[in-house]
């Protein structure tokens, strides 16, 4: 096979797998059959495209091939059985891309909303999205989430069984459920991104590729939901974080904090795209937590150096985020930003309040943040106490090394 045809098949797999599976699910209602027929269609493409040439619209070719295959298989299974009505429904069913009563014309959007249904567990939502929409294999997903392949295979089987048996509808949620369900879809993509982002250079390549998958699915969601500013906000947020990838780890594999990163390593093109997406989202004047987080990331990404970071703006944005997302972790980040904008004492007051609330008990970054602020106002003895408390809670080696260095400084 020529490398051009190879590339065409690989490209079609990346771009069209989700569409092919999504359409066959809509037509047959059978998730396993849809995956099998999509695989068959790609196998046929490998066989035929070198001989017949790459079709002008590979997606349509693959969808039709998979769909015909599904109809054939159901007809054959129906012979002499009561399944005849299924095949009859199929032969009269609408063409791909038809609009159903939800007014949605793209099957991939139905697929992603179904995969992210709140009646499925969060881990299942992520796995199902990667398998059916992104086309990752079960073994790739298992490796990415560090679980045995058998466990992941079972999780996927159970999920598909529940969708069928519990009557989870294959559709984009109706208007009255849409805000809540869209938030669930966005949360799945962000979870996917963070899994990849947390993976270090030493980790399995598949794990690191989760960021690229999340961004790819984020682009798809923006294209499918152009009026949803939070989808744009999330894509912007992911791009702005991903732009710093090359600077996040030093030559020895140590995590480099934002302040000390070599900004010449940041991906300027990704930053420009992220900022542009964010501006487009903000113009709709329907703010949400992803847009605000993207705005914070954009403040960092567009500062020429750490010293010129606009902390007053960032502290204000964290204030808005805290009002939208009542999370103690957001409150802690806000305290750090306020300390940078208005001085360590203002930040310390907020950290003390959080500590009194007990909402972050056991979270090492609470005493670690308090220790850093105490050190900056010259209260070394109290800082040492807080660093020791943080050390007891810190889980990773690199965090412990950082805290020990700081502790040595204040006790010197």
């Amino acid at each position, binding site marked *: 096979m020529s490398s051009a045809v190879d590339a065409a098949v690989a490209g079609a797999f990346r771009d069209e797998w989700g569409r092919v599976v999504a359409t066959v699910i809509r037509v047959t209602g059978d998730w396993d059959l849809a995956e099998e027929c999509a695989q068959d269609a790609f196998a046929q493409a490998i066989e035929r495209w070198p001989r017949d040439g790459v079709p002008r619209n590979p997606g349509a070719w693959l969808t039709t091939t998979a769909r015909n295959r599904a109809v054939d298989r159901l007809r054959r299974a129906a012979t002499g059985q009561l399944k005849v009505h299924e095949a009859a429904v199929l032969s009269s069913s609408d063409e791909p891309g038809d609009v159903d009563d939800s007014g949605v014309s793209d099957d991939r959007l139905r697929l992603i909303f179904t995969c992210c*249904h709140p*009646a499925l567990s969060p881990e299942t939502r992520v796995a199902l999205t990667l398998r059916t929409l992104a086309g990752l294999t079960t073994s790739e997903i298992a490796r990415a989430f560090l679980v045995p392949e058998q466990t992941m295979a079972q999780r996927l089987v159970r999920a598909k069984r529940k969708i069928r*048996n*519990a*009557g*989870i*509808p294959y559709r984009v*949620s*109706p208007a009255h*459920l849409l805000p809540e369900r869209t938030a669930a879809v966005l949360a799945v993509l962000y979870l996917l991104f963070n899994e990849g982002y947390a993976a270090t250079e030493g980790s399995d390549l598949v794990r690191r590729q989760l960021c690229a998958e999340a961004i790819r699915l984020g682009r798809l969601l923006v294209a499918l939901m152009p009026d949803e500013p939070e989808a744009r906000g999330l894509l912007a947020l992911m791009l702005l974080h991903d732009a710093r990838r090359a600077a996040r780890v030093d030559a020895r594999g140590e995590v480099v904090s934002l302040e000390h990163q070599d900004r010449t390593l940041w991906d300027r093109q990704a930053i420009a795209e992220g900022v542009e997406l964010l501006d487009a989202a903000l113009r709709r004047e329907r703010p949400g937590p992803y847009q605000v987080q993207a705005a914070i990331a954009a403040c960092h990404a567009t500062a020429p150096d750490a010293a010129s970071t606009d902390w007053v703006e960032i502290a204000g944005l964290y204030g808005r985020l805290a009002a939208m997302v009542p999370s103690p972790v957001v409150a802690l980040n806000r305290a750090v930003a306020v300390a940078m904008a208005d001085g360590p004492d203002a930040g310390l007051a907020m950290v003390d309040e959080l500590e009194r609330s007990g909402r972050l008990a056991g979270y090492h970054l609470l005493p670690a943040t308090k220790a850093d602020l105490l050190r900056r106002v010259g209260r070394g003895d109290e800082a040492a106490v807080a660093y020791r408390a943080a050390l007891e809670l810190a889980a990773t080696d690199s965090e412990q090394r950082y805290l020990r260095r700081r502790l040595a400084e204040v006790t010197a």
Partner: protein
Amino acid sequence: MRYLLMICTDENAIAAQSPEESAAMLGRYGTWAEEMGSRGVLQGGERLRPTTDATTVQVHDGEVLTTDGPFAETKEQIGGYFVVDCKDLDEAIEVAAKLPAAEHGTIEVRPIWEM
């Protein structure tokens, strides 16, 4: 699709209700049942006596073993059930969420295994 809605609540809290609270709760169930009946969703359902009135039965080697009490000691107990016929799980969730018990207890939504 048919679903069983199991109403799981703390029966001690229900027992401690004043007669006025109890009447108000029953009134809300009545309103719910009226809406679901007129929508063609509600197929049936009953309120259950508390687990203090329950008996569990098992047969071991042909011998019937009866025990006083429910099959498991839990914080919440099944206090009643409804069978509803819904378009899909989204409708069943909407119907379940409107039950008064959803505010202080838990509603388990189980698809019925049609034979």
